[in-house]
């Protein structure tokens, strides 16, 4: 029995039935990490000692006959932009290479209280800026389906770790598609919750009005289970919403007969690979088989979402990243006076993509351009939100590809920032509107996974889980794993 292939739901049963211990489970994952990391490189930091210590505590609890929670004793990992007290948190940046937070992110605390076993911190595009994890200052993460290809980004480490079974599940963050696009590229389930559903406290900010934390999991049930643990109001985050948090698993297994699915035609424009589009249309057929009603619809301002996003996100990032100045924490370069110290620190501590966005954002906010760029983009944001509001007057869920293509090769897009930005074209509008979006495995093109993107009304993650689960159980794509043989061919096992 390869226990690393199992879902959190399955592992919980095994723990409760005492068929395995959390310590055995944790060892199994740490072993696998050791064997695969040379190729996948999903982890920036592995916290084996503290993981085994936590596992022993959970085992002791089980031995005492106490009941354990659903996620208790189960190994997982966090994207390295979520602060963990006493464990270095780098954002895959030279700037924070040595940074050890004196506090933990709210999600880290909630998972710790749920008994999760933290295996380590996961690689990402530096400060979550990128769509391939090539912008990590340490090393790129490889796609377990094809090691020559990127895992997507910026939560590339999170998606790859789950796909390669180096963690049962992971938390990523999504500002313009950073959970969903890598989930699609790596063939796992990735949820970007409604803005305000999951606390951002302790998430190192990229673009505050767009960032959300969410789970990357092997299947839809696990995703709902992790959401149960992390979602809900947090008074430390002023943008966190008080809402009636449901048990997200209650939506699993509900049939989708009569459910209305809108397919915005703007999401199938040029740039969308025709093979990817075909997989999505097959998915639509499958959903219709299950009784859903699907039809084309229109979100007329979709084309304006990307340019608006590439003004708003950099503007916020230019301000959020101002604090990295070499004074209080992080990298510091030598300089004759304060200004030269700060300018050198930031020149050396940040990579090119981060600097590019800081430059763009600073420019968009600067005097004389603020109205033309920033305010204009915020007005466009209003129009995009209105598009969604209108569509959700008719449809329960909207559907699109998650990404226009399957995972691309290293270096393929890294020389042209704009072409890289366009890989988020289907996911970005969702962040601008603050609504939830999920990517689930929907098939393959050339042996590489394709993600189906479902978008829902604000705080209606439940319906997304309902549709996603029905689709998953009907098609079974989530059960196809990157083959051990293929991985072995690259010398992984």
């Amino acid at each position, binding site marked *: 029995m390869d226990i690393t292939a199992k879902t959190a739901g399955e592992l919980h049963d095994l723990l409760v039935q005492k068929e395995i211990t959390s310590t055995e489970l944790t060892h199994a994952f740490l072993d696998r990490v050791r064997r695969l990391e040379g190729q996948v490189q999903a982890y920036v930091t592995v916290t084996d000692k503290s993981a085994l210590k936590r596992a022993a505590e959970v085992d002791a609890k089980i031995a005492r006959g106490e009941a354990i929670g659903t996620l208790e004793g189960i190994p997982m990992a966090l994207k390295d*932009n*979520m*602060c963990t007290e006493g464990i270095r*948190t780098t*954002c895959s940046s030279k700037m*924070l290479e040595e*940074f050890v*937070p*004196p*506090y933990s*992110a709210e999600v880290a605390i909630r998972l710790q209280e749920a008994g999760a076993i933290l295996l380590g911190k996961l690689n990402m595009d530096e400060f979550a800026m990128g769509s391939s994890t090539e912008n990590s200052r340490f090393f790129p993460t490889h796609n377990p389906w094809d090691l020559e290809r990127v895992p997507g980004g910026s939560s590339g480490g999170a998606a790859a770790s789950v796909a390669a079974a180096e963690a049962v599940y992971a938390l990523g963050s999504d500002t313009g598609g950073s959970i969903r696009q890598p989930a699609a590229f790596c063939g796992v389930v990735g949820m970007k919750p409604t803005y305000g559903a999951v606390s*951002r*406290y*302790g*998430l*190192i*900010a990229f*673009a*505050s*009005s767009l960032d959300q934390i969410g789970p990357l999991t092997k299947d839809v049930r696990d995703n709902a289970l992790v959401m149960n643990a992390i979602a809900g109001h947090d*008074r*430390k*985050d*002023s*943008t966190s919403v008080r809402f009636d948090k449901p048990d997200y698993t209650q939506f699993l297994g509900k049939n989708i007969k009569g459910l209305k699915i809108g397919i915005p035609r703007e999401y199938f424009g040029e740039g969308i690979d025709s093979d990817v589009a075909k997989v999505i249309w097959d998915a639509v057929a499958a959903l219709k088989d299950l009784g859903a009603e699907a039809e084309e619809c229109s979100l007329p301002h979709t084309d304006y979402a990307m340019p608006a996003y590439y003004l708003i996100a950099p*503007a*916020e990032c*230019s*301000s959020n990243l*101002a*604090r990295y*100045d070499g*004074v*209080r*924490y992080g990298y510091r370069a030598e300089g004759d006076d*304060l*200004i030269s110290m*700060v300018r050198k620190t930031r020149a050396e501590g940040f990579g090119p993509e981060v600097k590019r966005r800081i430059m763009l954002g*600073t420019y968009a*906010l*600067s*005097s004389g351009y*603020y109205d033309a760029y*920033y305010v204009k983009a915020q007005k466009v944001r209003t129009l995009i939100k209105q598009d969604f509001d209108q569509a959700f007057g008719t449809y329960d869920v909207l559907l699109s590809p998650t990404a226009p293509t399957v995972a691309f090769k290293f270096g393929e897009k890294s020389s042209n920032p704009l072409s890289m930005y366009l890989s988020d074209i289907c996911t970005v509008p969702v962040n601008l509107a603050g609504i939830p979006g999920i990517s689930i495995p929907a098939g393959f093109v050339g042996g590489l996974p394709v993600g189906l993107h479902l978008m829902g009304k604000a705080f209606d993650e439940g319906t997304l889980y309902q549709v996603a689960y029905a689709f998953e159980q009907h098609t079974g794509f989530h059960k196809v794993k990157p083959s051990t043989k293929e991985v072995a061919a690259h010398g992984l096992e």
Partner: protein
Amino acid sequence: MAWSDTYEMVCGVETHVELATKSKIFCGCTTEFGGEQNTHVCAVCSGLPGVLPVLNKEVVNLAIKAGLALNGEIAEFSKFDRKNYYYPDLPKNYQTSQYDLPICKNGWLEITVDGAKKRIGITRAHMEEDAGKLVHSGETITSSDESYVDYNRTGVPLLEIVSEPDLRSIAEVVAYLEQLVQILDYTQVSDCRLEQGSVRFDINVSLRPKGTSDLGTRTETKNLNSFASVRHCMEYETERQAEVLDAGDKVVQETRTWDEGKGITISLRSKEEAHDYRYFPEPDLVPLVIERSWVEEIRRTLPELPTERRMRYESLGLSEYDAGVLTSSRALADFFDEALSRYADAKILTNWVMGEFLRLLKANQQSVLDSPISPVQLAELLELIDKGSISGKIAKGVLEDMYATGKDAALIIKEKGLGQISDEAALAEIVEQVIAAHPQSVEDYRAGKERAIGFLVGQIMKATKGQANPSLVNKLLKEKLS
């Protein structure tokens, strides 16, 4: 010839007031003054990666209260913005402040200079966070090789109050600032401890030829923290600008700093870019919607303000000057009012408060709030004088003892045996002894020299160490000698 014969001064002031909350604006750290460096600091106010702010409700309450006391309009919708600039005392390298939708707009207050009343406009008042403190290795920032940063003050809540450029003389500026601080003190929006930097003034001043209406180029001198330094700084800066203009040169628009030691303002122009603060709405905080019921609830907590109080004192028969001194701080006026509730003669009370009481505070370098004498204790002392238990002269000494020991007047009088001898039998004996000892004076008096009785009274007072009741002594002497 003074510059004021040629030029007219135009001045507006930005005042930063520390709001009297227990905790900081966006985190739970204490706002207490002092403390060892970097000990009133948490993840949030030190700007660690990933932290988020949560607004302190009391900051909004106090800002509304100040806005009402300054006759301003309280916004129905208000929001926070980020003001982006790099400085090491600013942990996030942006200050969370308010830009286009401040909590209060269009206020005013009234000043009186040389008997003339004038209304000074208040453009706006907005909430923001304070920065930290820099300590320099050398004497000044420019002569230092390195600086040290203490973030204890970062995140202390401030209200920035911006006046209209309505001020036309240094006297008006000082009157405006005094009046403003009084109002903030009365409303207890701030503890107004100027010496601790809880109120700071930025002075914008320009000159223009008399009779013209275009504004001249202004300079801004930042971070003055006393009325005296505002006065001295403005005397210097107006003189300096006048000399520049007289020489046919142009005043440079710039930020300057006041060097208290040298008594000059110094340009802070850096080689750096002109300021471009790149304000944008703070995404980590949500807007404020201020219902009118909230505003009315706060309006009901407004106390009697200094102007109303001065008028009440004047109606008790006090002079305008006395009423002004008594209302100069809320603490003093409260002290006076409490004493007045026990001792009804406002004039006598005023003489004692403004005379002996303030003299003692000044001599001990203490404020009314630190006074060891309570208003009730002062009232009791005055009652004892009225009852004839002690003379006014002795009462001054008693007040000093009260100040030193905190004891009640009656106890001090008893312990020190200071009570006046009002016992007729005891005094009569002394009177007879004195008459017997000074036959010449007795003869002089009987011969019609009225003044001789003064000598005899003096002798009796001497014999009783001043404790004899003077009116009783007079009465007894006259009886015996008639």
